């Protein structure tokens, strides 16, 4: 899949990541798919965005972060009634998948992330978003 096949209104993506390297790489990948990107440096910042009424189509969430770890933030976001947002847990350990999925994530991606894995996920979110607007 190439970035030129992605059409429709931009996907609103939230990156929850405290490590600048990871946030920058993921932002660069998502920009290629014309996503609108917001970055939160920890789980608490991410939850605050939803409490402020912000809406996102997809969240990429790291696990280990200061203030509030990823799975806890995901639980709180789902508890706010945000059942439609696609949540992708991202971490360096394969054995961490369960903690993300138990918290309410939809997908787990291991780090380091591969570029060609993100595209189909964004396309699926975009298709769902555009179909719901019809």
């Amino acid at each position: 899949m190439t970035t030129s096949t992605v059409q429709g209104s931009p996907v609103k993506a939230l990156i929850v990541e405290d490590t600048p390297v990871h946030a920058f790489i993921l932002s660069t990948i998502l920009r290629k798919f014309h996503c609108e990107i917001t970055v939160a440096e920890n789980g608490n910042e991410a939850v605050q965005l939803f409490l402020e009424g912000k809406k996102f189509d997809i969240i990429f969430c790291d696990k280990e972060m200061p203030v509030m770890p990823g799975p806890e933030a995901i639980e709180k976001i789902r508890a706010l009634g945000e059942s439609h947002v696609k949540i992708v847990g991202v971490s360096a350990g394969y054995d961490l998948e369960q903690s993300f999925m138990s918290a309410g994530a939809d997908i787990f991606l291991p780090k380091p992330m591969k570029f060609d894995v993100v595209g189909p996920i964004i396309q699926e979110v975009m298709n769902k978003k555009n179909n719901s607007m019809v």
Partner: protein
Amino acid sequence: MAAVALKNQLNAHIASMFAAGFLDKQFQELQILQDDGSSPGFVSEVVGLFIDDAEKITGLIAGLLDQPVVDFDKVDALVHQLKGSSASVGAQRVKLSCEQFHSYYEAKNRDGCVMALALLRNEFYDSRSKFQTMFQLEQQIEACS
């Protein structure tokens, strides 16, 4: 002609970094992201972030190991963070050094951690030097264009 020679030099340098284990295939993922033309300077920028991050983290670890009572959980978290960022840029030797660190902080072994940090720093400084040579060559190529 000068640009061609410099490009050959750059390619040889990067190949030697792969051959010596400084880089792994994750670095090629970064190059792919840059090569489609929409993110010029992406590789140098993300490696620059990694270098800044690594310098900060190794300094923090040194500070923790210098305390009368070592907080090994914090050491663990910092090494984990550095391992993650080094893996994401393909800095293989740094990543492997972080993995070797693991047994020492699991055993709450301060002296072992101090030694592991010294090894980690050596690998990081060598990697940083190689990256800096890479970026100098890229700048010279750009200057010729």
